[in-house]
């Protein structure tokens, strides 16, 4: 008998997945929270105190925020027009091919892609060689192991990602809106400014948030491309586990990062809700 109440059957079906999630997702989070409040085996706020009193630690958070915001900003600004070109200018029969072309680079390993940028930006790498060959430079630029390299590496990935999400947003837009705007006398430009842009804004917001979360938690790109002069939060966290084997501190730093992400989430959700009314 198919009934929609909770009985032993549904519990048996849902049980494994739910138990697994609790055991390996919720419990670890709780354990991490608990660990962050321990030092030398006892309850302590030392870890958080440590963070607040170490200028280099706070700096890591500041760096992370700066880099992530810059990356998100640049990626959105570059990806939006590209998504527009894909959605509006590419003829219908080439749409699938264009989409494939955009997705293809994702098939390279993420680690390897960041490494490729290292190749490009190295002192004897392609970029420097090219610039010197054209006479624009006498001496190679220090591009690798800088914040610039980290930003370039991130922007490369997020342009690909955001182009896809914004493109999907464009495609979902009912053609009736554009027809109605034209019918009422709007030029192409006016239609874009008054109708298309406002209606794709929520999609941009969601994409930007996604980029923010992924970037701020990423270890690979800053570690490979940013060098050791400047540390971002993920690098700081991993550092605690590696050499210093200080799990509680790492846990505290992770929690701080989580709080930052949650704040961003709430701000985004609030903005989206305001958009609706």
């Amino acid at each position: 008998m198919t009934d929609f109440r909770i009985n032993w059957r549904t519990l048996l079906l849902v049980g494994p997945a739910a138990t697994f999630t609790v055991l390996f997702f919720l419990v670890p989070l709780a354990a991490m929270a608990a660990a962050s409040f321990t030092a030398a085996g006892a309850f302590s706020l030392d870890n958080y105190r440590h963070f607040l009193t170490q200028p280099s630690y706070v700096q890591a958070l500041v760096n992370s925020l700066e880099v992530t915001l810059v990356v998100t900003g640049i990626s959105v600004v570059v990806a939006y027009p590209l998504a527009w070109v894909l959605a509006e200018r590419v003829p219908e029969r080439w749409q699938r091919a264009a989409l494939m072309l955009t997705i293809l680079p994702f098939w390279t390993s993420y680690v390897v892609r960041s490494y490729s940028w290292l190749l490009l930006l190295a002192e004897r790498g392609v970029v420097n060689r090219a610039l010197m060959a054209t006479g624009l430079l006498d001496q190679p630029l220090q591009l690798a192991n800088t914040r610039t390299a980290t930003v370039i590496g991130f922007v490369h990935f997020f342009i690909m990602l955001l182009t896809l999400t914004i493109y999907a947003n464009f495609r979902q837009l009912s053609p009736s809106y554009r027809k109605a705007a034209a019918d009422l006398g709007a030029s192409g430009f006016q239609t874009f400014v008054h109708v298309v842009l406002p209606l794709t804004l929520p999609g941009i917001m969601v994409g930007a948030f996604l980029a923010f979360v992924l970037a701020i938690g990423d270890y690979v790109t800053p570690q490979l491309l940013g060098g050791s002069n400047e540390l971002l939060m993920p690098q700081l966290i991993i550092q605690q586990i590696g050499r210093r084997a200080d799990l509680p501190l790492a846990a505290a730093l992770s929690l701080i990062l989580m709080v930052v992400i949650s704040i961003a989430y709430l701000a985004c959700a609030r903005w989206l809700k305001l958009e609706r009314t």
Partner: protein
Amino acid sequence: MSAPVVSIRNLSHAFGQLTVLHELSLDIKPGEYVVLLGPSGSGKTTLLSILGGFLEPSAGRVLIDGRDCTRMPPAKRPTTTVFQDYALFPHMSVGANVAFGLRMNGIAKAERVDLARGTLALVGLEQAFDKKPHQLSGGQRQRVALARALVMKPKLLLLDEPLGALDLGLRRQMQDELKAIQKRVGTAFVHVTHDQEEAMALADLLLVMQDGRIVDQGDPERVYTQPSSRFSATFMGENTLVDAEVVEVAGSTATVRTAFGTLKLDRPQARPGKAVLTVRPENMRLGTAHSGKVSFGDGTVAESVFQGSYRKAVVRTDSRQEIVLKLAVDQPISKGERVALHADPRHVGLLQE
């Protein structure tokens, strides 16, 4: 006789190899409510798109208010369209939606707001000015779409199955309102629908379309009772068709011979040759034909079914044709009864294609 507000001359359109409109020609008078009626694939939506400027026709011309607008884009054309899905801009308030066209045409804010409020009052929604579209019901959204189009004072208002998304009761109510609003503003409307009752309720000029051609046009009552094409005879409800022959035409009188006898009909357009007589079920009567009435022979009642507001009877004639009648509910009639059939010549259509 005023000049037509819209003139279509030899309009044709093809999508690739498929011709969807064949040499259409049509005049629309100012203030006329025109309805395009037809099944899907008849070309009615294509014709509307061409009138609105969303499609450039393969051949032919469209003149609006005397000007050749064939290749004119929608923005410059003196037409506005009410879309099937209303296409209200979700991020703007109702007032901003209605004022949008005015804003695009450079009207100052104060004047825009005034005009928008006025038109919203016309459709009975002045209190919705600051609301957002998603806060309104389907019927209300439909009226906002109408207001947005009307405020532009177009020479021609186009409506693409505007009542399709509404339920029956609401549809009937909106039909009355649409008609009333059209009379008040005096703008020519072109309304596309596949619902024949809607078409007949609204149209001053009814156009029946099939396979890219106008197969019948005129006053709804005339088109209904005296269809001039086989398609419009059967598309708009049940109809009895009887083979006939026009043997002679003298002045405006046609002598028509059928299996049930010879009759004279006042049909100036008739010409000698094969024809089909049409009679709607509600116009077919029981009893022998007496002075002036047209006989449709005798037959046996095969079925008599209670349908609520009328009684549906099917009579199998001696010439083995099945004729459907709509009778009064309490008409005494029983299966197997022998009856005679006749109709008033004003209700008899003469089809010659």
